[in-house]
């Protein structure tokens, strides 16, 4: 059985396991939707009271938020438990993965699903279509294609970064707080356009922990906000490249971490 088939078979089991708890499912969905609604309302109040935030109008802000949420929702549905790696290590669950006759990476990824990602998807799709209509966007085929790529890139960027941060626990035993730092940077990028922040912050979220490529840079391209005179305009097209680079880096780190873990006699 190849890796992909195995992955989806295990994911089906994980979904079935989750669906045992119906009430939990509904309260969770409502909780997530309330959270997102409050966030967007707060942003909405700020922006509409001041007409715009550094040139970003209300619906552009909604677009920015929902583009992030779209990529994030796929991550949160399939890969939310990456941050739980430290628990797997402490509880010995990870040792079980190593003993099975399949890639421990697939075992790890297919371990769980986070059904609450569904609520994020619902919210993101609604928000994006409302923004799309209110901004009277008319995309070319290339832009639609790029939109799709940007969403997938967003998912990959968040997933690989989460994996890299989680791998810290192979060395230190804990990684949850470091993962939370990632989340926090992420959330700041999610709420506000990066151009309102200072130079250092922009440098960090562009070059070091490139979460700005999940929504800010692709949104510049998709909303025709790229400044053709800026020497940095090309960053608007870079999300897929950034995602691919991160995939390579994270897989190297994962293999290094795994070698270290096994050699410790685990």
């Amino acid at each position, binding site marked *: 059985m190849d890796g992909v088939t195995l992955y989806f078979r295990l994911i089906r089991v994980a979904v079935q396991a989750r669906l045992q708890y119906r009430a939990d499912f509904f309260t969770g969905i409502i909780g997530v939707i*309330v959270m997102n609604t*409050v966030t967007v309302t707060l942003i909405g*109040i700020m922006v509409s*009271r001041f007409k715009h935030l550094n040139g970003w109008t209300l619906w552009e802000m909604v677009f920015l938020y929902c583009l992030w949420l779209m990529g994030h929702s796929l991550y949160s549905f399939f890969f939310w438990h990456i941050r739980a790696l430290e628990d797997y290590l402490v509880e010995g669950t990870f040792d079980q993965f190593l003993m099975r006759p399949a890639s421990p990476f697939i075992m790890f990824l297919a371990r769980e699903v986070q059904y609450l990602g569904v609520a994020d998807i619902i919210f993101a799709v609604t928000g994006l279509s409302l923004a799309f209509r209110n901004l009277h966007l008319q995309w070319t085929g290339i832009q639609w294609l790029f939109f799709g790529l940007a969403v997938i890139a967003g998912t990959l960027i968040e997933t690989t970064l989460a994996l890299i941060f989680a791998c810290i626990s192979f060395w230190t035993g*804990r990684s949850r*707080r*470091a993962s939370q730092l990632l989340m*926090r940077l992420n959330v700041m990028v999610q709420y506000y356009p990066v151009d*309102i922040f200072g130079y250092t912050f922009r440098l960090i979220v562009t070059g070091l922990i490139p979460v700005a490529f999940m929504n800010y840079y692709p949104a510049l391209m998709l909303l025709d906000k790229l400044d053709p005179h800026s020497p940095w305009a090309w960053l608007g097209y870079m999300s897929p490249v950034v995602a691919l680079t991160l995939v390579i880096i994270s897989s190297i780190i994962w293999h290094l971490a795994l070698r270290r873990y096994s050699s410790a006699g685990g």
Partner: protein
Amino acid sequence: MKIFWSFARSTFQFIVAYRFDFFMEFVLAVLRMYGIYWVWRILYTQRPGAFGVTLEQMTTYGVMGMALEMFIWSRPQWYMANQIKSGAIDTDLMKPLDFHWYMLARSIGEMFIGVGVLGLPALIIAFIFLGVQFPPDVASGLLFVVSMLFGFLLLFHLNFLLGSLAVVALDIRHISWAYFSVVRFLGGQIVPLWLFPPFVAVIAEALPFKGTYYIPISIYIGKLTGLDAFKALGFQAVWLVVLVVLSRLLWSAAHRRLVVQGG
């Protein structure tokens, strides 16, 4: 008092054991303050003096909103939910202490440690790097401290009520997500109530949530002064009485239910 110090001591030991976690918590708090600082700075550079506040007042409001979280933060609800779920609540009920006061003493102990370890250091950073100003006069400063204590007690009781729900709901995690968002929103932690659209403002003005962040910070920046400030304190006091009574009633009902279950 002795009980309270023993809680504070055990919390302190907990923090020493999780140094790294608390350091990260600190970094996160600074990031939150940094984020909101820039948002208000940009908005007020676009429209100086909008809604009768200056740029400095508004950035102070935003940063204080984030900082205040570490001053009035308490989490009896998680303790209650865990104890109820695991059944360990029995041992708490057997103690010769009123449960409500026990939770309050515990939360006050946690608050002092949280303020010392996270709140004050974050505030110092805010004063030095994020241009947070002092209150306009001594009176505002004093009223702010009183109002903040009210804010702590209000939030504690709201959280206590949420925790009591655990008897019925068992898992309060999902409810708490919605709850915390609503507290942040109606409490004015991020956006002050005077910016709300009228129909939302009417609701937010009447509910106790604005006593957690909005009233203390508005007093701090000198937006609420004189008689208005005292009225606001009165508002907090009235809601506090209501919430204390509600907490006692709800908890005694919850307690009965626990006993009936044979707990």
